[in-house]
Protein backbone atom coordinates (compact mmCIF):
# COMPACT_ATOMS: atom_id res chain seq x y z
CA UNK A 1 0.00 0.00 0.00
CA UNK A 2 2.68 2.45 1.10
CA UNK A 3 4.68 1.64 -2.04
CA UNK A 4 1.82 2.76 -4.25
CA UNK A 5 1.06 5.94 -2.32
CA UNK A 6 4.67 7.07 -1.80
CA UNK A 7 5.26 8.47 -5.33
CA UNK A 8 2.02 10.50 -5.16
CA UNK A 9 3.02 11.86 -1.75
CA UNK A 10 6.38 12.89 -3.20
CA UNK A 11 4.70 14.78 -6.06
CA UNK A 12 2.27 16.54 -3.71
CA UNK A 13 5.15 17.41 -1.40
CA UNK A 14 7.15 18.88 -4.27
CA UNK A 15 4.21 21.02 -5.41
CA UNK A 16 3.66 22.17 -1.83
CA UNK A 17 7.28 23.26 -1.45
CA UNK A 18 7.04 25.04 -4.78
CA UNK A 19 3.84 26.82 -3.72
CA UNK A 20 5.36 27.99 -0.42
CA UNK A 21 8.67 29.02 -2.00
CA UNK A 22 6.89 31.00 -4.67
CA UNK A 23 4.69 32.75 -2.09
CA UNK A 24 7.71 33.54 0.06
CA UNK A 25 9.82 34.92 -2.80
CA UNK A 26 6.89 36.77 -4.36
CA UNK A 27 8.72 37.16 -7.66
CA UNK A 28 6.91 37.80 -10.99
CA UNK A 29 9.05 35.26 -12.83
CA UNK A 30 8.25 32.52 -10.31
CA UNK A 31 4.54 31.70 -10.45
CA UNK A 32 2.99 29.52 -7.78
CA UNK A 33 2.36 25.86 -8.45
CA UNK A 34 -1.36 26.50 -8.65
CA UNK A 35 -0.93 29.20 -11.27
CA UNK A 36 1.27 26.92 -13.35
CA UNK A 37 -1.20 24.04 -13.10
CA UNK A 38 -4.04 26.37 -14.03
CA UNK A 39 -2.16 27.33 -17.22
CA UNK A 40 -1.87 23.69 -18.38
CA UNK A 41 -5.38 23.40 -19.94
CA UNK A 42 -4.75 26.55 -21.97
CA UNK A 43 -1.53 25.09 -23.38
CA UNK A 44 -3.02 21.68 -24.12
CA UNK A 45 -6.24 23.16 -25.49
CA UNK A 46 -4.44 25.30 -28.03
CA UNK A 47 -4.37 23.82 -31.53
CA UNK A 48 -0.98 25.36 -32.38
CA UNK A 49 0.71 23.92 -29.37
CA UNK A 50 -0.73 20.49 -30.10
CA UNK A 51 0.79 20.70 -33.59
CA UNK A 52 4.06 21.63 -31.92
CA UNK A 53 3.86 18.67 -29.55
CA UNK A 54 3.10 16.40 -32.48
CA UNK A 55 6.18 17.63 -34.34
CA UNK A 56 8.33 17.10 -31.23
CA UNK A 57 7.09 13.60 -30.67
CA UNK A 58 7.53 12.70 -34.33
CA UNK A 59 11.18 13.80 -34.31
CA UNK A 60 11.77 12.06 -31.04
CA UNK A 61 10.25 8.80 -32.28
CA UNK A 62 12.26 8.86 -35.51
CA UNK A 63 15.51 9.85 -33.78
CA UNK A 64 15.04 7.22 -31.08
CA UNK A 65 14.09 4.42 -33.48
CA UNK A 66 16.89 5.07 -35.94
CA UNK A 67 19.35 5.29 -33.03
CA UNK A 68 18.25 1.86 -31.75
CA UNK A 69 18.39 0.35 -35.25
CA UNK A 70 22.00 1.50 -35.65
CA UNK A 71 23.34 1.33 -32.09
CA UNK A 72 22.18 -2.12 -31.02
CA UNK A 73 23.84 -3.99 -33.92
CA UNK A 74 26.94 -1.83 -33.61
CA UNK A 75 27.20 -2.36 -29.85
CA UNK A 76 26.70 -6.11 -30.21
CA UNK A 77 29.36 -6.35 -32.91
CA UNK A 78 31.77 -4.33 -30.77
CA UNK A 79 31.09 -6.62 -27.84
CA UNK A 80 31.88 -9.75 -29.83
CA UNK A 81 34.73 -8.57 -32.05
CA UNK A 82 37.85 -6.96 -30.70
CA UNK A 83 38.68 -5.49 -34.11
CA UNK A 84 35.32 -3.74 -34.44
CA UNK A 85 35.58 -2.49 -30.86
CA UNK A 86 39.06 -1.03 -31.26
CA UNK A 87 37.99 0.70 -34.49
CA UNK A 88 34.90 2.41 -33.05
CA UNK A 89 36.08 2.96 -29.48
CA UNK A 90 38.24 6.07 -30.13
CA UNK A 91 35.49 7.61 -32.29
CA UNK A 92 32.92 7.11 -29.56
CA UNK A 93 35.31 8.36 -26.87
CA UNK A 94 35.63 11.64 -28.79
CA UNK A 95 31.87 12.08 -29.13
CA UNK A 96 31.03 10.88 -25.63
CA UNK A 97 31.85 13.94 -23.48
CA UNK A 98 30.52 16.48 -26.01
CA UNK A 99 27.05 17.74 -25.06
CA UNK A 100 25.04 16.76 -28.13
CA UNK A 101 23.14 20.05 -28.09
CA UNK A 102 26.48 21.87 -28.41
CA UNK A 103 26.80 20.32 -31.88
CA UNK A 104 23.47 21.84 -32.84
CA UNK A 105 24.80 25.15 -34.24
CA UNK A 106 27.25 23.34 -36.53
CA UNK A 107 24.67 20.83 -37.63
CA UNK A 108 22.28 23.70 -38.34
CA UNK A 109 24.86 25.28 -40.63
CA UNK A 110 25.03 22.05 -42.64
CA UNK A 111 21.47 20.84 -42.56
CA UNK A 112 19.39 23.90 -41.77
CA UNK A 113 17.03 24.50 -38.86
CA UNK A 114 14.46 21.93 -39.94
CA UNK A 115 13.55 18.43 -38.80
CA UNK A 116 16.73 16.80 -40.04
CA UNK A 117 19.08 18.72 -37.73
CA UNK A 118 16.92 18.19 -34.67
CA UNK A 119 16.36 14.51 -35.40
CA UNK A 120 20.10 14.04 -35.90
CA UNK A 121 20.84 15.57 -32.50
CA UNK A 122 18.29 13.27 -30.86
CA UNK A 123 19.86 10.34 -32.71
CA UNK A 124 23.30 11.26 -31.36
CA UNK A 125 21.99 11.70 -27.83
CA UNK A 126 20.30 8.29 -27.78
CA UNK A 127 23.05 6.35 -29.56
CA UNK A 128 25.84 6.44 -27.00
CA UNK A 129 24.11 4.86 -23.99
CA UNK A 130 22.51 2.25 -26.24
CA UNK A 131 25.84 1.40 -27.90
CA UNK A 132 27.54 1.24 -24.52
CA UNK A 133 24.98 -1.06 -22.90
CA UNK A 134 24.69 -3.27 -26.00
CA UNK A 135 28.47 -3.56 -25.99
CA UNK A 136 28.59 -4.50 -22.31
CA UNK A 137 25.72 -6.93 -22.71
CA UNK A 138 27.29 -8.66 -25.70
CA UNK A 139 30.68 -8.86 -24.01
CA UNK A 140 29.18 -10.56 -20.96
CA UNK A 141 27.50 -13.36 -22.94
CA UNK A 142 28.82 -16.67 -21.66
CA UNK A 143 31.24 -18.26 -24.11
CA UNK A 144 29.83 -21.73 -23.39
CA UNK A 145 26.37 -20.56 -24.43
CA UNK A 146 27.78 -19.60 -27.83
CA UNK A 147 29.64 -22.91 -28.03
CA UNK A 148 26.41 -24.77 -27.31
CA UNK A 149 24.83 -22.89 -30.21
CA UNK A 150 27.79 -23.59 -32.47
CA UNK A 151 27.53 -27.31 -31.70
CA UNK A 152 23.87 -27.18 -32.78
CA UNK A 153 25.03 -25.81 -36.11
CA UNK A 154 24.40 -22.06 -35.74
CA UNK A 155 26.63 -19.91 -37.96
CA UNK A 156 28.45 -16.85 -36.60
CA UNK A 157 25.71 -14.48 -37.76
CA UNK A 158 22.96 -16.74 -36.42
CA UNK A 159 24.78 -16.82 -33.07
CA UNK A 160 24.88 -13.01 -33.00
CA UNK A 161 21.18 -12.64 -33.78
CA UNK A 162 19.77 -15.66 -31.99
CA UNK A 163 22.05 -15.96 -28.96
CA UNK A 164 23.97 -12.73 -28.32
CA UNK A 165 20.97 -10.45 -28.96
CA UNK A 166 18.49 -12.21 -26.64
CA UNK A 167 21.14 -12.96 -24.01
CA UNK A 168 22.16 -9.28 -23.94
CA UNK A 169 18.58 -7.99 -24.09
CA UNK A 170 18.23 -7.07 -20.38
CA UNK A 171 21.37 -4.94 -20.61
CA UNK A 172 20.36 -3.48 -24.01
CA UNK A 173 16.99 -2.41 -22.61
CA UNK A 174 18.71 -0.70 -19.68
CA UNK A 175 20.56 1.38 -22.28
CA UNK A 176 17.34 2.05 -24.19
CA UNK A 177 15.71 3.35 -21.05
CA UNK A 178 18.51 5.87 -20.51
CA UNK A 179 18.30 6.65 -24.22
CA UNK A 180 14.61 7.39 -23.99
CA UNK A 181 15.10 10.04 -21.31
CA UNK A 182 18.02 11.50 -23.25
CA UNK A 183 15.82 11.63 -26.36
CA UNK A 184 13.37 13.81 -24.47
CA UNK A 185 16.14 16.09 -23.18
CA UNK A 186 17.85 16.48 -26.56
CA UNK A 187 14.48 17.02 -28.19
CA UNK A 188 13.77 20.04 -25.96
CA UNK A 189 17.29 21.47 -26.15
CA UNK A 190 17.45 21.14 -29.94
CA UNK A 191 14.20 23.10 -30.17
CA UNK A 192 15.58 25.66 -27.80
CA UNK A 193 18.50 26.32 -30.13
CA UNK A 194 16.71 26.00 -33.45
CA UNK A 195 13.40 27.66 -32.64
CA UNK A 196 10.88 26.92 -35.26
CA UNK A 197 8.49 24.35 -33.91
CA UNK A 198 8.05 21.91 -31.05
CA UNK A 199 7.50 21.82 -27.33
CA UNK A 200 10.82 23.53 -26.63
CA UNK A 201 9.75 26.30 -28.96
CA UNK A 202 6.56 26.97 -26.96
CA UNK A 203 8.53 26.95 -23.72
CA UNK A 204 11.19 29.43 -24.80
CA UNK A 205 8.80 31.70 -26.69
CA UNK A 206 6.73 31.98 -23.54
CA UNK A 207 9.91 32.76 -21.62
CA UNK A 208 10.77 35.56 -24.06
CA UNK A 209 7.31 37.01 -23.71
CA UNK A 210 7.35 36.83 -19.93
CA UNK A 211 4.49 34.34 -19.73
CA UNK A 212 5.97 32.58 -16.75
CA UNK A 213 2.89 30.54 -15.88
CA UNK A 214 3.06 29.00 -19.39
CA UNK A 215 6.80 28.35 -18.96
CA UNK A 216 6.20 26.40 -15.76
CA UNK A 217 3.14 24.69 -17.18
CA UNK A 218 5.37 23.44 -20.01
CA UNK A 219 7.97 22.22 -17.54
CA UNK A 220 5.28 20.22 -15.77
CA UNK A 221 3.97 18.82 -19.08
CA UNK A 222 7.43 17.80 -20.31
CA UNK A 223 8.21 16.26 -16.92
CA UNK A 224 4.94 14.32 -16.99
CA UNK A 225 5.73 13.15 -20.53
CA UNK A 226 9.08 11.88 -19.32
CA UNK A 227 7.53 9.99 -16.43
CA UNK A 228 4.79 8.59 -18.66
CA UNK A 229 7.15 7.41 -21.40
CA UNK A 230 9.48 5.89 -18.86
CA UNK A 231 6.66 4.03 -17.12
CA UNK A 232 5.40 2.74 -20.46
CA UNK A 233 8.84 1.59 -21.44
CA UNK A 234 9.34 -0.09 -18.08
CA UNK A 235 6.14 -2.11 -18.62
CA UNK A 236 7.40 -3.25 -22.00
CA UNK A 237 10.84 -4.06 -20.62
CA UNK A 238 9.47 -6.12 -17.75
CA UNK A 239 7.43 -8.14 -20.22
CA UNK A 240 10.34 -8.74 -22.59
CA UNK A 241 12.81 -9.91 -19.96
CA UNK A 242 10.64 -11.68 -17.40
CA UNK A 243 12.93 -14.68 -17.90
CA UNK A 244 15.98 -12.75 -16.68
CA UNK A 245 17.70 -13.03 -13.34
CA UNK A 246 16.46 -10.41 -10.87
CA UNK A 247 19.67 -8.38 -10.90
CA UNK A 248 18.20 -6.62 -13.92
CA UNK A 249 15.18 -5.38 -12.00
CA UNK A 250 15.13 -1.61 -11.95
CA UNK A 251 12.87 -0.57 -9.13
CA UNK A 252 13.19 3.18 -9.82
CA UNK A 253 10.19 3.78 -12.01
CA UNK A 254 6.61 4.93 -11.83
CA UNK A 255 5.25 1.93 -13.71
Amino acid at each position, binding site marked *: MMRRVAPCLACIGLLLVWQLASLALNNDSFPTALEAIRAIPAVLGDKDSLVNFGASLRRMTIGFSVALAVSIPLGLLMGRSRAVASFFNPLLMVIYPVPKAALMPIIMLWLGVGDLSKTLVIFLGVSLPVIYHSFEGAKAV*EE*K*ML*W*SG*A*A*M*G*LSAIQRLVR*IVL*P*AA*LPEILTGCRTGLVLALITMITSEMIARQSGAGNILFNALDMGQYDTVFAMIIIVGAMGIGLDALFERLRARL*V*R*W*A*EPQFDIPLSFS
Partner: protein
Amino acid sequence: MQPAAVHKPATAMIQIDHVSQMFQTSARQDHLALSDISLSVANGAFVSILGPSGCGKSTLLYIVGGFVQPTKGIARMKGEAIRGPGPDRGPVFQEFALFPWKTVLGNVMYGPRQQGVKHAEAEAQSRALLEMVGLKGFENFYPKELSGGMKQRVALARTLAYHPEVLLMDEPFGALDAHTRTRLQNDLLNIWERDRKTVLFVTHSVEEAVFLSDKVVMMTPSPGRIRQIVDIDLPRPRRRAELLLDPRYQKYVVEIERMFDDSGELQP
Protein backbone atom coordinates in the same frame (compact mmCIF):
# COMPACT_ATOMS: atom_id res chain seq x y z
CA MET B 1 51.28 -47.96 -19.58
CA GLN B 2 49.83 -48.13 -23.04
CA PRO B 3 51.98 -46.95 -25.91
CA ALA B 4 50.91 -43.70 -27.54
CA ALA B 5 48.34 -44.66 -30.09
CA VAL B 6 49.39 -43.58 -33.53
CA HIS B 7 46.90 -45.09 -35.93
CA LYS B 8 44.25 -47.33 -34.51
CA PRO B 9 41.90 -49.26 -36.76
CA ALA B 10 38.87 -47.52 -38.25
CA THR B 11 36.71 -48.36 -35.24
CA ALA B 12 38.13 -45.34 -33.37
CA MET B 13 35.43 -42.69 -33.02
CA ILE B 14 37.87 -40.04 -31.88
CA GLN B 15 41.54 -39.98 -32.63
CA ILE B 16 43.83 -37.42 -31.03
CA ASP B 17 47.32 -37.28 -32.55
CA HIS B 18 50.22 -35.50 -30.84
CA VAL B 19 48.12 -32.57 -29.74
CA SER B 20 49.80 -29.70 -27.87
CA GLN B 21 48.18 -26.51 -26.72
CA MET B 22 49.97 -23.26 -25.93
CA PHE B 23 48.34 -20.29 -24.23
CA GLN B 24 49.45 -16.73 -23.73
CA THR B 25 49.04 -15.73 -20.12
CA SER B 26 47.90 -12.25 -19.20
CA ALA B 27 51.58 -11.47 -18.50
CA ARG B 28 52.21 -12.35 -22.18
CA GLN B 29 54.15 -15.46 -21.35
CA ASP B 30 53.70 -18.71 -23.19
CA HIS B 31 52.12 -21.40 -21.11
CA LEU B 32 52.08 -25.01 -22.28
CA ALA B 33 48.69 -26.40 -21.27
CA LEU B 34 48.79 -29.71 -23.12
CA SER B 35 51.89 -31.52 -24.27
CA ASP B 36 51.88 -34.16 -26.98
CA ILE B 37 48.59 -35.91 -26.24
CA SER B 38 47.71 -38.97 -28.30
CA LEU B 39 44.53 -40.84 -27.50
CA SER B 40 42.05 -42.99 -29.29
CA VAL B 41 38.44 -43.40 -28.17
CA ALA B 42 36.53 -46.39 -29.51
CA ASN B 43 32.94 -46.17 -30.73
CA GLY B 44 30.54 -46.60 -27.82
CA ALA B 45 33.19 -46.26 -25.12
CA PHE B 46 32.77 -44.26 -21.94
CA VAL B 47 36.15 -42.62 -21.38
CA SER B 48 36.99 -40.31 -18.48
CA ILE B 49 39.81 -37.81 -18.46
CA LEU B 50 40.96 -37.50 -14.88
CA GLY B 51 43.41 -34.98 -13.52
CA PRO B 52 44.01 -32.11 -11.12
CA SER B 53 42.65 -28.69 -11.97
CA GLY B 54 44.82 -26.81 -14.42
CA CYS B 55 46.05 -29.93 -16.20
CA GLY B 56 44.33 -28.95 -19.43
CA LYS B 57 41.78 -31.76 -19.40
CA SER B 58 38.93 -29.41 -20.29
CA THR B 59 41.04 -27.88 -23.05
CA LEU B 60 41.47 -31.35 -24.54
CA LEU B 61 37.69 -31.73 -24.56
CA TYR B 62 37.27 -28.30 -26.21
CA ILE B 63 39.72 -29.34 -28.92
CA VAL B 64 37.63 -32.44 -29.67
CA GLY B 65 34.54 -30.20 -29.62
CA GLY B 66 36.19 -27.95 -32.20
CA PHE B 67 35.80 -24.91 -29.91
CA VAL B 68 39.58 -24.54 -29.56
CA GLN B 69 42.17 -25.14 -32.28
CA PRO B 70 45.23 -27.05 -31.06
CA THR B 71 48.59 -25.33 -31.44
CA LYS B 72 50.13 -28.57 -32.68
CA GLY B 73 48.79 -31.93 -33.72
CA ILE B 74 45.37 -32.91 -34.95
CA ALA B 75 42.12 -34.34 -33.62
CA ARG B 76 39.93 -36.50 -35.83
CA MET B 77 36.37 -37.66 -35.65
CA LYS B 78 35.75 -40.88 -37.61
CA GLY B 79 38.92 -40.18 -39.52
CA GLU B 80 37.95 -36.63 -40.51
CA ALA B 81 40.01 -33.73 -39.16
CA ILE B 82 38.01 -31.64 -36.68
CA ARG B 83 37.85 -28.05 -37.94
CA GLY B 84 35.05 -26.62 -35.83
CA PRO B 85 32.02 -27.45 -33.70
CA GLY B 86 29.30 -29.63 -35.16
CA PRO B 87 26.14 -31.46 -34.12
CA ASP B 88 27.96 -34.81 -34.22
CA ARG B 89 29.69 -33.78 -30.96
CA GLY B 90 27.39 -32.53 -28.22
CA PRO B 91 28.89 -30.66 -25.26
CA VAL B 92 27.52 -30.57 -21.70
CA PHE B 93 29.23 -27.91 -19.59
CA GLN B 94 29.69 -27.51 -15.86
CA GLU B 95 28.11 -24.06 -16.22
CA PHE B 96 24.99 -25.59 -17.87
CA ALA B 97 25.03 -22.76 -20.49
CA LEU B 98 21.27 -22.96 -20.98
CA PHE B 99 19.51 -20.24 -22.99
CA PRO B 100 17.85 -18.27 -20.17
CA TRP B 101 15.26 -16.61 -22.45
CA LYS B 102 13.91 -20.00 -23.52
CA THR B 103 11.72 -22.26 -21.42
CA VAL B 104 12.93 -25.75 -20.52
CA LEU B 105 11.05 -27.13 -23.53
CA GLY B 106 12.33 -24.32 -25.76
CA ASN B 107 15.92 -25.12 -24.77
CA VAL B 108 15.56 -28.81 -25.60
CA MET B 109 13.78 -28.09 -28.89
CA TYR B 110 16.41 -25.59 -30.00
CA GLY B 111 18.84 -28.11 -31.51
CA PRO B 112 16.30 -30.23 -33.42
CA ARG B 113 14.61 -27.08 -34.75
CA GLN B 114 18.00 -25.81 -35.92
CA GLN B 115 18.50 -29.16 -37.67
CA GLY B 116 15.24 -28.62 -39.55
CA VAL B 117 13.02 -31.01 -37.59
CA LYS B 118 9.34 -30.00 -37.80
CA HIS B 119 7.96 -28.17 -34.77
CA ALA B 120 5.45 -30.81 -33.72
CA GLU B 121 7.98 -33.61 -34.08
CA ALA B 122 10.71 -31.69 -32.22
CA GLU B 123 8.26 -30.94 -29.44
CA ALA B 124 7.18 -34.56 -29.08
CA GLN B 125 10.78 -35.77 -28.99
CA SER B 126 11.77 -33.08 -26.52
CA ARG B 127 8.90 -33.86 -24.19
CA ALA B 128 9.90 -37.53 -24.24
CA LEU B 129 13.52 -36.62 -23.48
CA LEU B 130 12.48 -34.37 -20.60
CA GLU B 131 10.47 -37.22 -19.17
CA MET B 132 13.50 -39.47 -19.48
CA VAL B 133 15.70 -37.05 -17.49
CA GLY B 134 12.95 -36.74 -14.87
CA LEU B 135 11.68 -33.26 -15.68
CA LYS B 136 8.11 -33.99 -16.72
CA GLY B 137 5.95 -31.10 -15.57
CA PHE B 138 8.75 -28.51 -15.82
CA GLU B 139 8.45 -27.90 -19.57
CA ASN B 140 7.29 -24.30 -19.23
CA PHE B 141 9.71 -23.24 -16.51
CA TYR B 142 12.52 -20.81 -17.23
CA PRO B 143 16.08 -21.86 -16.32
CA LYS B 144 16.28 -19.29 -13.50
CA GLU B 145 13.43 -21.12 -11.78
CA LEU B 146 15.35 -24.43 -11.62
CA SER B 147 17.91 -25.85 -9.19
CA GLY B 148 21.45 -26.65 -10.37
CA GLY B 149 20.72 -30.36 -10.73
CA MET B 150 17.59 -29.67 -12.77
CA LYS B 151 19.48 -27.24 -14.99
CA GLN B 152 22.06 -29.90 -15.73
CA ARG B 153 19.31 -32.38 -16.58
CA VAL B 154 17.90 -29.85 -19.05
CA ALA B 155 21.38 -29.31 -20.50
CA LEU B 156 21.82 -33.06 -20.97
CA ALA B 157 18.38 -33.38 -22.61
CA ARG B 158 19.13 -30.37 -24.82
CA THR B 159 22.31 -32.01 -26.08
CA LEU B 160 20.78 -35.49 -26.49
CA ALA B 161 17.93 -33.89 -28.48
CA TYR B 162 20.04 -33.35 -31.60
CA HIS B 163 21.47 -36.89 -31.49
CA PRO B 164 25.21 -36.25 -31.31
CA GLU B 165 27.36 -39.32 -31.87
CA VAL B 166 29.72 -38.26 -29.11
CA LEU B 167 28.86 -36.65 -25.79
CA LEU B 168 31.52 -34.25 -24.49
CA MET B 169 30.97 -33.75 -20.79
CA ASP B 170 33.05 -31.06 -19.10
CA GLU B 171 32.89 -31.70 -15.33
CA PRO B 172 29.11 -31.73 -15.72
CA PHE B 173 28.38 -32.51 -12.09
CA GLY B 174 31.18 -30.40 -10.59
CA ALA B 175 28.92 -27.54 -9.53
CA LEU B 176 26.37 -29.76 -7.78
CA ASP B 177 26.06 -30.89 -4.19
CA ALA B 178 27.11 -34.46 -3.33
CA HIS B 179 23.60 -35.89 -3.19
CA THR B 180 22.45 -34.40 -6.50
CA ARG B 181 25.74 -35.44 -8.01
CA THR B 182 25.33 -39.15 -7.23
CA ARG B 183 21.74 -39.10 -8.47
CA LEU B 184 22.79 -37.57 -11.74
CA GLN B 185 25.64 -40.06 -12.09
CA ASN B 186 23.16 -42.91 -11.70
CA ASP B 187 20.74 -41.37 -14.16
CA LEU B 188 23.49 -40.69 -16.68
CA LEU B 189 24.58 -44.33 -16.51
CA ASN B 190 20.99 -45.54 -16.99
CA ILE B 191 20.56 -43.31 -20.02
CA TRP B 192 23.95 -44.23 -21.42
CA GLU B 193 23.39 -47.95 -21.02
CA ARG B 194 20.35 -47.69 -23.29
CA ASP B 195 22.07 -46.39 -26.42
CA ARG B 196 25.80 -46.53 -25.59
CA LYS B 197 26.89 -43.30 -27.21
CA THR B 198 30.58 -42.53 -27.14
CA VAL B 199 31.25 -40.34 -24.09
CA LEU B 200 34.30 -38.26 -23.26
CA PHE B 201 33.91 -37.24 -19.63
CA VAL B 202 36.19 -34.76 -17.86
CA THR B 203 36.33 -34.96 -14.06
CA HIS B 204 38.64 -34.53 -11.10
CA SER B 205 36.81 -37.12 -8.99
CA VAL B 206 38.45 -40.56 -8.94
CA GLU B 207 35.26 -42.29 -7.71
CA GLU B 208 33.18 -40.66 -10.42
CA ALA B 209 35.64 -41.68 -13.14
CA VAL B 210 35.84 -45.32 -11.97
CA PHE B 211 32.09 -45.62 -11.41
CA LEU B 212 31.15 -44.38 -14.88
CA SER B 213 33.94 -45.33 -17.25
CA ASP B 214 35.35 -48.13 -19.37
CA LYS B 215 38.67 -46.33 -19.46
CA VAL B 216 40.21 -43.70 -17.21
CA VAL B 217 42.84 -41.45 -18.78
CA MET B 218 45.05 -40.09 -15.99
CA MET B 219 46.69 -36.74 -16.69
CA THR B 220 49.72 -35.07 -15.12
CA PRO B 221 49.47 -31.48 -13.90
CA SER B 222 50.64 -28.64 -16.08
CA PRO B 223 51.72 -29.18 -18.74
CA GLY B 224 49.05 -31.85 -19.17
CA ARG B 225 50.36 -35.16 -20.41
CA ILE B 226 48.79 -38.59 -20.37
CA ARG B 227 50.29 -40.35 -17.38
CA GLN B 228 48.49 -43.65 -17.71
CA ILE B 229 45.36 -45.20 -19.12
CA VAL B 230 43.52 -47.57 -16.79
CA ASP B 231 40.94 -49.99 -18.18
CA ILE B 232 38.05 -50.34 -15.76
CA ASP B 233 36.98 -53.94 -16.01
CA LEU B 234 33.74 -53.86 -14.04
CA PRO B 235 30.48 -55.48 -15.13
CA ARG B 236 27.60 -53.47 -16.58
CA PRO B 237 24.93 -52.46 -15.97
CA ARG B 238 26.55 -50.96 -12.91
CA ARG B 239 24.49 -50.36 -9.82
CA ARG B 240 25.91 -47.95 -7.31
CA ALA B 241 24.97 -49.94 -4.19
CA GLU B 242 26.59 -53.11 -5.55
CA LEU B 243 29.63 -51.37 -6.93
CA LEU B 244 30.59 -49.54 -3.74
CA LEU B 245 30.82 -52.91 -1.99
CA ASP B 246 32.73 -54.53 -4.86
CA PRO B 247 36.43 -54.98 -3.92
CA ARG B 248 37.40 -54.57 -7.58
CA TYR B 249 35.86 -51.10 -7.63
CA GLN B 250 37.57 -50.21 -4.36
CA LYS B 251 40.88 -51.46 -5.71
CA TYR B 252 40.65 -49.26 -8.81
CA VAL B 253 39.88 -46.19 -6.72
CA VAL B 254 42.70 -46.83 -4.27
CA GLU B 255 45.21 -47.67 -6.98
CA ILE B 256 44.49 -44.56 -8.98
CA GLU B 257 44.62 -42.37 -5.89
CA ARG B 258 47.91 -43.97 -4.90
CA MET B 259 49.40 -43.29 -8.31
CA PHE B 260 48.55 -39.60 -7.97
CA ASP B 261 49.95 -39.63 -4.40
CA ASP B 262 53.21 -41.37 -5.23
CA SER B 263 54.10 -38.89 -7.89
CA GLY B 264 54.09 -36.17 -5.24
CA GLU B 265 51.98 -34.15 -7.60
CA LEU B 266 48.84 -32.32 -6.70
CA GLN B 267 45.99 -34.65 -6.11
CA PRO B 268 43.11 -34.50 -8.52
